[in-house]
């Protein structure tokens, strides 16, 4: 875990993509250079503030060669509310890149299935997979409604790869869970499938179950409460499969092989 940094990052852009979906573009060359898909950063908004005190983990949406790093997030509480009010030129404090990202092997075909903000690390992954000419990733995205989906889907669609869509309210794409689209997507046996997923826990559980039944390799990116992100607080414990002790999402994950996790 040597290539980790604590750095001041300058806000370059703060965009609102939907009512409660935002994207932050930060200049942070040391972290951006080392970041790999599936890794995350711990962000502190106002370095002198004591409330909110604890950093928040965000998976990395993408990085650019110019040292930029993007975070896609939903405004859900006090911390993300303050984040949404950041302006270009403001400074935040980042620790990263942290955790174990997606294992990238270009021999299988890849199915990337995301729910809500779970799309963020999958976009980073998709851009990395497409660096390889043999990669043929398929993306499945779910959101609450069309507005949220339109905040997430266009950048995937611009990559020129198949994108399946679902919304909870049926306002765009399949009316129902995005997992409903997974079974029909894993067709063709000439190349084995490798499924990557990120999103709400019940969705990940459903993806893990389906992949287990169909013997598809599956990695999920999980989220828990965590205070440090670097393996010190031990707050991010997750029961290991067989209830044999705990995994720690910050170090063992956030990307874990689905079979490692005790699903509840």
């Amino acid at each position: 875990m040597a290539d980790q940094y604590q750095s001041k990052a300058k806000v370059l852009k703060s965009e609102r993509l939907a009512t409660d979906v935002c994207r932050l573009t930060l200049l942070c060359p040391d972290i951006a250079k080392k970041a790999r898909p599936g890794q995350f950063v711990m962000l502190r908004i106002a370095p002198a503030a004591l409330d909110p005190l604890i950093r928040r983990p965000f998976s990395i949406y993408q990085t650019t060669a110019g040292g930029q790093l993007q975070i896609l997030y939903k405004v859900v509480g006090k911390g993300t509310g303050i984040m949404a009010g950041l302006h270009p030129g403001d400074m935040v404090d980042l620790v990263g890149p942290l955790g174990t990202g997606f294992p990238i092997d270009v021999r299988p075909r890849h199915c990337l299935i995301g729910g809500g903000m779970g799309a963020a690390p999958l976009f980073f992954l998709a851009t990395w997979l497409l660096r390889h000419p043999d990669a043929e990733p398929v993306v499945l995205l779910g959101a609450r409604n069309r507005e949220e989906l339109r905040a997430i889907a266009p950048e995937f669609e611009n990559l020129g790869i198949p994108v399946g869509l679902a919304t909870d309210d049926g306002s765009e794409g399949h009316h129902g869970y995005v997992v409903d689209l997974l079974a029909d997507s894993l067709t063709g046996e000439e190349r084995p499938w490798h499924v990557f997923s990120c999103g709400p826990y019940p969705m990940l559980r459903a993806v893990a179950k389906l992949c287990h039944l169909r013997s598809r390799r599956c990695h999920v990116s999980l989220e828990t409460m965590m205070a440090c992100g670097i393996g010190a607080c031990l707050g991010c414990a997750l029961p290991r499969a067989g209830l044999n002790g705990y995994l720690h999402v910050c170090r063992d994950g956030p990307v874990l092989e689905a079979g490692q996790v005790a699903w509840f």
Partner: protein
Amino acid sequence: MMNSPDLKVNIGGLILKNPVLTASGTFGYGEEFAPFVNLHRLGAVVVKGISLAPRAGNPPPRIVETACGMLNAIGLENVGVDRFLAEKLPYLRGLGATVIVNILGETLDEYRELARRLGEEGDIAAIELNISCPNVKKGGVAFGSDPKMARAVTEAVCRHARQPVIMKLSPNVTDIRVIARAAEEGGAAAVSLINTLLGMAIDAETRRPKLANLVGGLSGPAIKPVALRMVWQVASAVKIPVIGIGGIVTAVDAIEFLLAGATAIEVGTANFVNPKATEEILAGIRSYLERHKMQSARELIGALAPDA
């Protein structure tokens, strides 16, 4: 041009290069912070509490943020003394860090055995005795709240340890001075305080406790005034050095603890928020001393003016 101020402090015979230590449980085994902190520059690295056998810890959720602080119920998850000595200690030794090992047990025999095992390691600078963790049902908290048991466990560990023994005190008692005196009588070289305050958080929407353990230990800036008051009380109740802990985020916080009577301080929750906190606090203490034209950090210890 003035000489750089002397930051050395003496913890019951143990000379530390400066008064900035890490609080057990907030700094892992040190290596987690190596990308951010020069570990050998700290007064000491106090590692995660070690038990004889490895402990898996409590089920999640284990932590929750509260106003200006956090609650934790980790449950003393640790690798156990064998793996600590084989895998964790050599790394810190290699960096030249001053290492203090926090130990915890459920019985007097376990504490004795841990003291004996660590006593064999010449380069462990001191042992900090955790008799005050609120998150385990047996052991810890009972030793920490009963003066007779606190004295007995201190005596037992001091007899087997070759290093100075620091007793870490719980604030969850009626009068912390009584436990501090018991530790002093038992032979402790110093006391460190405070451990976390027992607390609780509830989710009104789901009507459930936010921690799986129901209750947990409150830490962070929210507890600093309580910690300062207890350090001040204990410093005048015992003759052995006091190590101040509780909500220290900045150098100014640390200096307040020294003024209240602490000889050194431990930085805890701030390590999570700002991994570089310890070295920043150290630099801040140095510049405070220079600004006030003081020769030594020791001039600050207990230098609280008598009234407001």
